[in-house]
């Protein structure tokens, strides 16, 4: 394990500055709707791959095709939204499957942060893992942000995780998010492997103390 720890430390030193996600600035991609599941974000057939590369173009593939067939235009296909980097979503975004492919697809599509009503738990954890900040707005503020960003595709947004604030043009809205995730994104420490590996000795101690790891010779729970 010791040589492995050094390798991971080197890896982290190389990328630490690139990993900080304190402030994300760009235009908005508003996507109305609640309970948008990860099967819609990235349909299962695109998971038939051993790499994450190339997922970006398939984000919302079926929703986009369905709208096109009806003569509509999905926000992800709207030329006015090309290059947008902040996704605005409703409630319980990312429910369903644990596929990390969902945030991977959004990130690889060029999105760098998500603001919305609320997020499903596994999806949120995966967004921590891929360095894609998610922040929550109150229902009233979310409605206002949807209204502002739907009207004007050129509007500049800035999500400031240090100040816990979203700027939309001249307006400011408070955002909330779990502190551990906020710190991980701001400080660029969201890639957890090296930190976890640094406690290898404590891990071995806990492993040895677990009943099912030692023929149940230590048995009680305090």
């Amino acid at each position: 394990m010791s040589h492995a720890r050094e390798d991971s430390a080197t890896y982290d030193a190389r990328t630490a500055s690139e990993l900080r996600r304190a402030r994300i600035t760009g235009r908005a991609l508003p996507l109305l709707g609640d309970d948008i599941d990860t099967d819609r974000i990235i349909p299962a057939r695109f998971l038939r791959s051993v790499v994450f590369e190339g997922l970006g173009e398939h984000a919302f593939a079926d929703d986009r095709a369905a709208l096109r067939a009806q003569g509509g235009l999905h926000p992800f296909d709207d030329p006015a939204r090309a290059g947008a980097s902040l996704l605005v979503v409703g409630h319980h975004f990312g429910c369903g499957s644990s596929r990390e492919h969902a945030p991977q697809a959004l990130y690889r599509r060029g999105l760098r942060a998500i603001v919305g009503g609320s997020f499903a738990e596994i999806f949120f954890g995966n967004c921590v893992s891929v360095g894609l900040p998610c922040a929550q707005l109150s229902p009233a503020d979310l409605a206002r942000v949807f209204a502002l960003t739907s009207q004007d595709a050129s509007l500049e947004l800035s999500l400031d995780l240090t100040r816990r604030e979203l700027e939309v043009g001249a307006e400011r809205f408070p955002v909330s998010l779990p502190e551990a995730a906020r710190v991980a994104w701001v400080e660029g420490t969201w890639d957890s492997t090296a930190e976890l590996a640094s406690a290898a000795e404590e891990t071995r101690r806990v492993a040895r103390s677990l009943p099912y790891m030692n023929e149940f010779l230590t048995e009680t729970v305090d």
Partner: protein
Amino acid sequence: MGKTLYQKVFERHTVRQLPSGQHQLFVGLHLIHEVTTPQAFSMLEERGLRVAYPERTFATVDHIIPTRGLTRPLADPEAEAMLAALERNVEASSIRYFSQARGENGIVHVLGPERGLTQPGMTICCGDSHTSTHGAFGAIAFGIGTSQVRDVLATQTLAVTKLKVRRVELYGRLARGVYAKDVALFLIAKLGVQAGVGYAHELAGEVFERFSMEERMTVCNMSVEGGARVGYVQPDSTTYDYLEGREFSPRGAAWERAVRYWESTRSDADARYDDVVRFDASEIEPVVTWGIHPGQSIPVGGTLPAENGQGRENLREAYQYMQLEPGRPLAGTPIQVAFIGSCTNGRASDFAEVAELILALRRAGKRATVAPGVRALAVPGSQAVRAELIQRGHAAILTEAGFDLREPGCSMCLAMNPDRLEGDELCASTSNRNFKGRQGSPRGRTLLMSPVMVAAAALTGVVTDARRLMEGPA
């Protein structure tokens, strides 16, 4: 003040508190499959890391595996690449692999319990949201993403946020013809698909105590559909009876000690819960979903809700996609496909219930064959389940009735293999998700229900209250 099982097992597995406030948690059992792991192994390799505790990880192939005509290389080159990557990775890291070549494969959440790998008082992770299934044994079991799979492989630990605990109590008795799947769908309809976010659900009360392990697994499996990443039932004699004698279960003197440990993990009588909800089991009827998430359901005898009913939801999108109308009954709606299987309802007891229905109909002199124009798939959750169906004669009953009995896999639950809906086919399904496009066709439509209700729909060709099947003329 007493503690819950969640608190006890969490504390026992805590390596340390991290500076972020999260906890570093030891993972007792890590289950892996071909879809969410190739990138995790690649990341390890990039960083020059090795699998830290290979003896605590177990692998199988389930999502992409064809359910018939399995020859290598697989016809789908992408599926073949994923299977080959899994085989390479488990070989290089000395991970025990339940392979299709040796006839050991199965859906990861069916396989773990039946091998005795899943045990009370453990922490269990897998790159799959339905890992909550294993909570049926009194384990803390939850789904993780691929980067977290990397962390578990590299360190056997994870950075996790401690959940709150909600006691979900079901008292009274279930009516005849009401199954564990109905309980799961009922709870989601009552609580909402988001209520469980931030919570572990402790499923408690008489109904869960009387439930078999298979029934407990069905409800814990669906916890995540109600937003709760973790659902669990306290371990008891039902749990221990199930585990005794299984391949990875403790034996001899260790068995006695194991039961003592498992007993000690049970929630204390004076445990403090962050929330408690109680429901009367006698209220529950057979449930069918009609919409595009598992919370959109009605009792099979009910009518579809108004488009702008209560709550935050606008149901128009669901109605448009499902081609259904508010105010109408769902019963009588023609289906084109029936699917019995998945980690929710792909165990031997699920197929046994269907076989019993078919036998009862036959005994009553009624037609018991799949309706014309319906494709009916029966996909066992594992090779062991399949062998049991054959041995008990249930396979023959299902086949004679017109079900297409396949080899095990996730199959049409999420259609990563060749089994899928075509066009806008409507499928009565025992799986767990009715999301848009979930069963492989971007316009495919899913109605979730219990295995017996799916069988009733398959035999009649329409959504049917299975309890009514025995009534009326032959």
